[in-house]
């Protein structure tokens, strides 16, 4: 049957095959250890279960990773996302606490808007350092990574600020039509990003800048503006993530909020198949990657791995996923079709 043959072939060639497979394997492990892992029930009018938790908890990483994907596509990297998330949360929470009516919807909305505006400015600052001053992205964003924690601590005065605002809390624990609001927000940003990059020419221009900056410049691409925008967007995404994380516990701890989230986000991006060398990116891949990371986080307590073995387990999983993704290993699966090896030429074509 030639029809099905081409279908399987298409599936086999699809770049998302391996990330999705890895995710499925991880879920399978969970089910094998705890057969009730997939159980979902209704609880107080919304869905409740491991999968729901995973989806909800994936929201912050997904948000950060979306911004990171675009930054990475331009050959950059954004280390400051964790600090920006902390600043965002700090700004929003102190505003809510300081507001006259702590529990009101308008208070929450105003505070969040204000916080996100700050984050866009911070992101744009990164973009300025990278594109105008010409500092290497890793250092440019390292500056805000270091200073940003200090700023967010200065805002909260180093204390854990607790807020009591039901609307704000709903950002993380609310449900819309039984689905966690946090995930809907993340999906919304995902859809918006996809729309903005794939329905306009933005995606292609970002990729061009990432693959060959000089050629793009000569072709008239406004690479400066693009880089600037992308960092600002990353700041915005990190800001939203910060709000979601803060809402999750109704509090902000400037010191630990979003700590090392940049590593998780980068990992999600890479698992999703986007190369750190810049260029082609896959937002859907990033989505899968973020779900993978959230699932991994849930797997550890679920299958009862002792705390001291957490890192070892993560190491094994990361190596396994990478090997799965490696073209060399994949070639072993496809025994019958021996393609020409193109050593290293595929990379650094620019």
């Amino acid at each position, binding site marked *: 049957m030639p029809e099905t043959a081409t279908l399987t072939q298409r599936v086999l060639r699809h770049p998302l095959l391996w990330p999705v497979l890895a995710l499925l394997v991880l879920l399978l492990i969970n089910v094998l250890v*705890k057969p*009730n*892992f997939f*159980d979902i029930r209704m*609880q*107080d009018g919304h869905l*409740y*279960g*491991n999968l729901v*938790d995973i989806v909800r*908890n994936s929201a912050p990483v997904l948000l950060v990773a979306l911004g990171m994907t675009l930054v990475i596509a331009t050959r950059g990297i954004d280390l400051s996302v964790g600090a920006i998330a902390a600043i965002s949360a700090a700004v929003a929470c102190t505003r809510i606490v300081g507001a006259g009516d702590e529990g009101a919807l308008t208070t929450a909305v105003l505070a969040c808007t204000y916080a996100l505006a700050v984050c866009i400015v911070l992101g744009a600052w990164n973009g300025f350092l990278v594109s105008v001053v010409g500092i290497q992205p890793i250092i440019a964003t390292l500056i805000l990574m270091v200073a940003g924690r200090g700023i967010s*601590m200065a805002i909260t*005065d*180093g*204390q*854990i600020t*607790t807020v009591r605002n039901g609307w704000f809390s709903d950002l993380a*624990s609310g449900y819309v039509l039984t689905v966690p609001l946090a995930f809907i927000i993340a999906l919304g940003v995902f859809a918006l990003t996809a729309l903005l990059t794939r329905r306009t020419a933005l995606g292609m221009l970002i990729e061009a800048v990432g693959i060959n900056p000089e050629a793009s410049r000569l072709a008239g691409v406004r690479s400066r503006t693009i880089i600037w925008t992308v960092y600002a967007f990353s700041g915005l995404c990190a800001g939203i993530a910060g709000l979601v*994380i803060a809402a*999750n*516990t*109704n*509090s902000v*701890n400037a*010191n*630990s*909020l979003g700590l090392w989230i940049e590593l998780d986000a980068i990992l999600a991006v890479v698992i999703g198949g986007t190369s750190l060398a810049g260029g082609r990116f896959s937002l859907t891949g990033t989505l899968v990657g973020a779900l993978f990371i959230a699932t991994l*986080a*849930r797997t*550890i*307590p*679920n299958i*009862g791995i*002792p*705390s*001291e073995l*957490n890192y070892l387990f993560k190491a094994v999983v990361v190596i396994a996923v990478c090997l799965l993704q490696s073209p060399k290993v994949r070639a072993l699966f496809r025994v019958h079709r021996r393609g020409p090896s193109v050593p290293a030429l595929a990379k650094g074509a620019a």
Partner: protein
Amino acid sequence: ACGSDSAGGDATASDDGSITMGFAQVGAESGWRTANTTSIQDSAKEAGIDLKFTDAQGKQENQIQAIRSYIQQKVDVIAFSPVVETGWDAVLNEAKAAGIPVILTDRAVDSKDTSLYKTFLGSDFVVEGQKAGQWVVDNADEADTDGDGKINVVQLEGTTGAAPAIDRGEGFADSISADPSIKVVASQTGDFTRDGGKQVMESFLQSGDHIDVLFAQNDDMGLGAIEAIEAAGLTPGKDIKIITVDAVHDGMQALSDGKINFIVECSPLLGPQLMDLAKKVLDGEEVEPRILTEETTFDQAQATEALPDRQY
């Protein structure tokens, strides 16, 4: 502890009468730590001591560098909260050679040469864990929420490898071993944060086994867990008994609200005692080599009472 004898009387020793203290803080990783820092900065000002403060951002090597720079600046006394017990001999020897007395706060060092420091002021984490465990043993009936005769405990550990996490866990296990019906069924690190505590607790709740007691190694993880418990449709403090350590303001509030059942205090307000000690040391007075901070425990009623004048 809690601010009993704060104001330092008349000025002490030292050439021009003023005392300079170098303090190397571990970091600012938690609300507890910030309260600790504030306490030290405030009481230094109050006691008229010139404080040189450094935050080592969680790294021992930074702390060592800071201490070294204090030696170069020839401060009168050095105080610090060691991140870990080990590895201080070299720099403490330098301080000794320079004739600068050293006071440890919050955590001991394991140096065999006790002449390297004058005294150690701080709590005992093992005892804190024991107190928490003792509560479960003492209230076994109440703690067995489903009445099956077995008490299933889940534990939220602090940062793996951190001294408080290790010691509190040890103390807790030590106490509950007295009662065979009490068993830790799951234990996982929540990194001392609310978010970590919430996420791990969510997973514990999903496992389907009944949980009687939650022991969170600090308030923050406990507070995060409370949210997870509420989201699961259970009542914290009733369906699941909760014990935590620290007694920060939010924790006390929850305790007073009945969401937590018992808190073991771990006071960060070491400032006044520290300044006192510093003056004594510089005056050449003898001080005890080990000074425990005065700490207590709170149940719900005590919390309601204590809450209004909690400083942190």
